[in-house]
């Protein structure tokens, strides 16, 4: 294992990979900071840059963008009171309040240091846990993989929006999209209606770009044309730095919150938003000064920021060891693996250990670089905010077109992307969450193949799915995640 880390450091520290981490991190920060672009959208748009890069350079750039995106959402939250990411809402509440009191730099330093701490904590957990989980997962058979994918789909459907029914409808739609094309086992055509475009199936990168990015631009187009000019007095990061005693005083919060973030990030479909809110809620519950919450509680800010960055390591652990996306963004990473001819999962550690250990090191370095990148990013963001939003939107559409075209150099993919952009827009207009459809599109094939292989193994007996202890536990967890929201939706998630 030490040999792997040594090689990984040697590879990641090559100039092209360092540059990739820097550029990816900066792009992620800006994508997270700019309202209208989410972290997952930023990663999708970055995919087109990575087609011709070597795998290690590509993944360095993408993981840096992922870490940067989660961090960047807090910049606008503190300076403008606008959450760049849903996971930054607690930061708006506490960080912006601090900024309005004249402590913008203090809030920015606190968020930055806690984010980096949370990120590094989860990377260390990822380094330890991924090989263990991957080894354990080698014992998984088709029934266990089927149960795991069902768990992933049920969690994201149950927690992604206000309506459980719409969440599952979106999931079903994604599962349907995954079946279009050629059947992986019999080779027969399904739902192609004799068209060439559909014969190869729906390319999920194209669908993701449309459902996520194009639909977002169309939704933003409805709002009155706006460019936010005012911000609380930011005079530079040197204005007010927090003292070490502040962090020593909040040591328990700083240990608890990244743990919450890492565990929640590892749950398929949960992600940074839930991690951030759960940690914030815990901090509020156990705080010695609960009356400060809502008016600039520093422990609330620390909790949400360390947890939301810690979720990145948790999500990546599940992606690398089991091949399951822990969040929307890691679902995009699956596309990156496929573009470079790899499949994330338990076998990845044995077939491409240099990639897995390289990703560990790249994430560690990304979190360290974020300190410098964020300070640069704040200035750049304030300048970019002067750009006309209309032109910015046009540029995003062009990036989407390039991303969709660059996959197979086919104009047909552009029409597919456009169609999914319209579908995504209609879905969002009617409150149907898009995330379950995207994840179902990714997991649908996996789920079907696992189910059919299980039934082949058992000669058609469905009891194989509930006769193995691991698959029973996972299916029970899936049922729980479906039933739980029917009885109790945490107050903090209402309205999300």
């Amino acid at each position, binding site marked *: 294992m030490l040999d792997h880390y040594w090689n990984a450091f040697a590879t990641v520290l090559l100039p092209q990979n360092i540059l990739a981490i820097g550029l990816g991190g900066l792009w992620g920060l800006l994508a997270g900071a700019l309202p209208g672009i989410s972290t997952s959208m930023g990663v999708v748009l970055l995919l087109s840059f990575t087609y011709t890069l070597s795998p290690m350079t590509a993944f360095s750039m993408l993981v840096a963008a992922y870490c940067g995106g989660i961090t960047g959402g807090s910049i606008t939250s503190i300076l403008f009171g606008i959450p760049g990411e849903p996971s930054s809402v607690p930061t708006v509440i506490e960080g912006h309040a601090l900024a309005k009191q004249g402590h913008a730099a203090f809030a920015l330093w606190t968020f930055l240091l806690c984010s980096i701490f949370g990120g590094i904590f989860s990377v260390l957990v990822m380094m330890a846990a991924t090989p263990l989980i991957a080894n354990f997962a080698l014992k998984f058979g088709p029934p266990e993989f089927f149960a795991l994918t069902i768990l992933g789909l049920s969690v994201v459907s149950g927690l992604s929006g206000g309506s459980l029914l719409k969440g599952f409808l979106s999931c*079903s739609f994604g599962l349907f999209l995954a079946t279009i094309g050629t059947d992986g086992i019999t080779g027969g055509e399904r739902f192609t209606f004799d068209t060439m475009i559909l014969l190869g199936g729906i390319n999920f990168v194209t669908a993701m770009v449309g459902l996520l990015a194009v639909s977002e631009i169309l939704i933003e187009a*409805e709002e009155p044309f706006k460019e936010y000019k005012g911000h609380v007095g930011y005079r530079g990061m040197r204005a007010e730095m927090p003292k070490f005693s502040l962090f020593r005083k909040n040591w328990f919060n700083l240990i608890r919150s990244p743990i919450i973030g890492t565990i929640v990030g590892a749950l398929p479909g949960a992600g940074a938003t839930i991690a951030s809110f759960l940690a914030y809620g815990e901090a509020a519950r156990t705080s010695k000064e609960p009356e400060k919450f809502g008016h600039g509680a520093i422990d609330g800010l620390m909790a949400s920021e360390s947890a939301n960055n810690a979720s990145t390591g948790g999500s990546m652990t599940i992606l690398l060891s089991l091949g399951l996306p822990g969040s929307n963004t890691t679902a995009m990473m699956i596309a990156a693996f496929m573009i470079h001819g790899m499949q994330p999962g338990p076998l990845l550690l044995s077939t491409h250990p240099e990639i897995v250990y390289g990703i560990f090191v790249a994430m560690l370095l990304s979190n360290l670089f974020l300190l410098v990148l964020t300070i640069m990013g704040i200035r750049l963001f304030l300048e970019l905010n002067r750009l006309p939003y209309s032109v910015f*939107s046009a540029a995003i559409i062009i990036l989407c077109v390039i991303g969709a075209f660059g996959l197979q*150099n086919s104009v047909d993919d552009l029409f597919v992307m456009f169609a999914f952009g319209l579908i995504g827009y209609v879905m969002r207009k009617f409150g149907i969450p898009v995330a379950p459809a995207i994840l179902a599109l990714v997991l649908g094939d996996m789920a079907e193949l696992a189910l059919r292989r299980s039934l082949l193994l058992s000669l058609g007996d469905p009891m194989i799915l509930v006769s193995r202890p691991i698959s029973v536990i996972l299916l029970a967890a899936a049922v729980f995640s479906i039933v739980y929201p029917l009885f109790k939706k945490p107050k903090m998630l209402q309205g999300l």
Partner: protein
Amino acid sequence: MKKGEIALGAFCVAFFSFMFFEAVQLHGVGRFGEVGSGFWPMLFLGVSVLLSLGWLIATLGKFFKAKGEAAAESSPEASADTRGRRKKVGLSILCIFAYILAMPWIGFILSTFFFVPAFALALEERRKLVLIISPFLVTAITILVFAKFIAIPFPRGVGIFTVFSRLFY
């Protein structure tokens, strides 16, 4: 919005039902234990039909309930605002579609050059400086980064447009 939701719900019921019947035709059993191509689609499409029906019934219920209560009339300003938003979205969609349609014919560089100000105009951008400068900047940066540096083979168009595109990439 309720009428739109009812229409969408009805469309979902029809769509998933149609696909369910398509899946039934795919259903075939091969060797023992092999459930065939149609099994998995039938499973979730059946659930989808039920979910869509549930959504449609719930929406119809809310619609008839709201109809029974006194309905608040929207002000002329709100109606005008809604029309304005729909117009912006409609124009944006048209711009994107025209961009994609035109690209194989006139090439990436020209289609992008015209798309930028057209899309900005659709979003009610009126500043002349922005509309004049942005197409040049955006197209130049895009060609430099993606066509030259990353070497993505963008469409060059046909006829005279190919000749024009070859001047740049």
